[in-house]
């Protein structure tokens, strides 16, 4: 698996050769298109003491064409959760508009003081993704689910195969290669989370977005950032200590403090020095 969303879920072409479709008879029923078209790249997220920060750039690519430069790939779901999506944008829209929005509306009908929290959204999404891959018609996304759950910050990943895992520092796509090592320097394990401040976490994620812009050819220098902070545990009874979750958004953020000036000192590609 590499950072190109188009190659997710496929054997590596350079090892196994391109997929040989010659045996596919035209009479075969039910072939699904197994490729994404309009795509988003990495999502990056990091836990800190009292919350979690998540970021994704605003680009939707069409192959190598930077087709849409104002796409929001982070979306708030309910009161406790932000979902960040990489991969196919049409599938992302489906996930939000056809599955999650109605889910939240239905949940609020009960009006019982309970709300779907980050772990609930995450379990639901991972089941949907796995079910679709079992129908050989996957939703071509990798998702990060960030939020507040049972008095703790929550962060976990789910992909088009239904693969799930959680860690205090996560990134999808190109970020899995480039951002995760950087984030792990700040946060090697779950125990480290309580020593990371909100400001440190934001700075670490911003640094990742910069490196990704330098090295990911499908990225953009404009991104969104969501900071979920919480206190307490959900409780419905009278007089119980109240849970408090806030989600702060920074949208249309431009990358700051880029380093390019050193390019002036680079001349030729070997012996040449002028």
């Amino acid at each position, binding site marked *: 698996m590499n950072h190109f969303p188009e190659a997710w879920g496929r054997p590596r072409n350079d090892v196994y050769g391109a997929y040989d479709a010659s045996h596919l008879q035209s009479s075969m029923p039910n072939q699904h298109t197994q490729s994404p078209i309009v795509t988003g790249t990495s999502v990056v997220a990091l836990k800190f003491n009292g919350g979690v920060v998540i970021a994704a750039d605003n680009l939707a690519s069409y192959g190598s064409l930077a087709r849409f430069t104002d796409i929001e790939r982070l979306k708030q779901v309910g009161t406790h959760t932000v979902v960040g999506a990489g991969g196919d944008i049409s599938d992302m829209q489906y996930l939000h*508009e056809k599955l999650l*929005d*109605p889910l939240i*509306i*239905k949940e*609020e*009908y009960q*009006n019982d003081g309970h709300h779907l929290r980050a772990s609930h959204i995450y379990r639901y999404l991972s089941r949907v993704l796995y079910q679709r891959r079992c129908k050989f018609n996957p939703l071509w996304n990798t998702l990060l689910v960030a939020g507040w759950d049972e008095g703790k910050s929550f962060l976990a990943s789910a992909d088009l195969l239904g693969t799930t895992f959680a860690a205090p520092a996560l990134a999808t796509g190109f970020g899995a290669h480039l951002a995760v090592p950087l984030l792990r320097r700040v946060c090697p394990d779950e125990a480290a989370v309580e020593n990371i401040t909100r400001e440190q976490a934001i700075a670490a994620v911003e640094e990742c977005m910069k490196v990704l812009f330098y090295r990911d050819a499908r990225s953009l220098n404009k991104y969104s950032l969501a900071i979920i902070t919480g206190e307490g545990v959900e409780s419905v009874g009278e007089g119980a200590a109240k849970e408090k979750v806030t989600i702060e958004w920074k949208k249309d953020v431009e990358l700051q403090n880029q380093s390019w000036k050193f390019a002036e000192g680079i001349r030729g590609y070997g012996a040449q020095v002028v």
Partner: protein
Amino acid sequence: MPSSTSIGTGYDLSNSVFSPDGRNFQVEYATKAVENGGTAIGIRCKDGVVLAVEKLIGSKLLVPGSNKRIASVDNHIGIACSGLVPDARHFTSRARSEASNWRKLYRSPIPISSMADAMGGYAQAYTLYSSVRPFGVTAIIGGMDEAGGPGLWMVEPSGVGWGYFGAATGRGRQAAKAELEKLPLPNITVEEAVKQAARIIYFAHDDNSKDKDFELEMTWVRLEKGSAEELEEGGATKGWGKHEEVPKELVAEAERLAKESMEGGGDEEMEE
């Protein structure tokens, strides 16, 4: 209503049979069921809608605040029902499907008038067949949409549905209507309407079911935070609304004022 002479003639036994003078008695009996229900009212304001019901409490063993009579269907619509509770449950459940199907096709919330149309059509279909009976429910549908602003509709067991500035149904409807007519609708605010609604429900209760316990249930639809607001010439707010329970403190204050006005001798002029 069917006179004593028409009862027992057989024309009141089936939905799909008219009486010789062109009436559907099953629908009229359904209306009777509503007339026995707790009073429900709706008030259309310039910046939203208020719904209120007099929930009659049949037993002291019931948990206070349980068995709600006003339901949310989608984010921006509430339905207050009077009549048979199970019928009302089914009716609101259908309204939720209508709202959700609309969203699935059009990727936007359903306008209030379209919801009222759909539910009117649904209720009417239950007056046509011998295998079903009409809904023993009159539903007050309140909401707020982008194009029309605040909207208030009332759908009756016959399937008829009209738009209102102020709507009332249930056993205290006559008293409630009389009070609603005194209000300068729709030129009042939701905050004012909350107090008026509480007063009217208390007034109607006093008038019709004084001996019974009741709970006041109140919700409002107001502009959703972040939704684009637009003021019409007349001053009405437009935009997608949010239907939710009126905060406990406001209900308590409105109830306090309502009780005060009762003690003051019932039929006085309205005041702040």
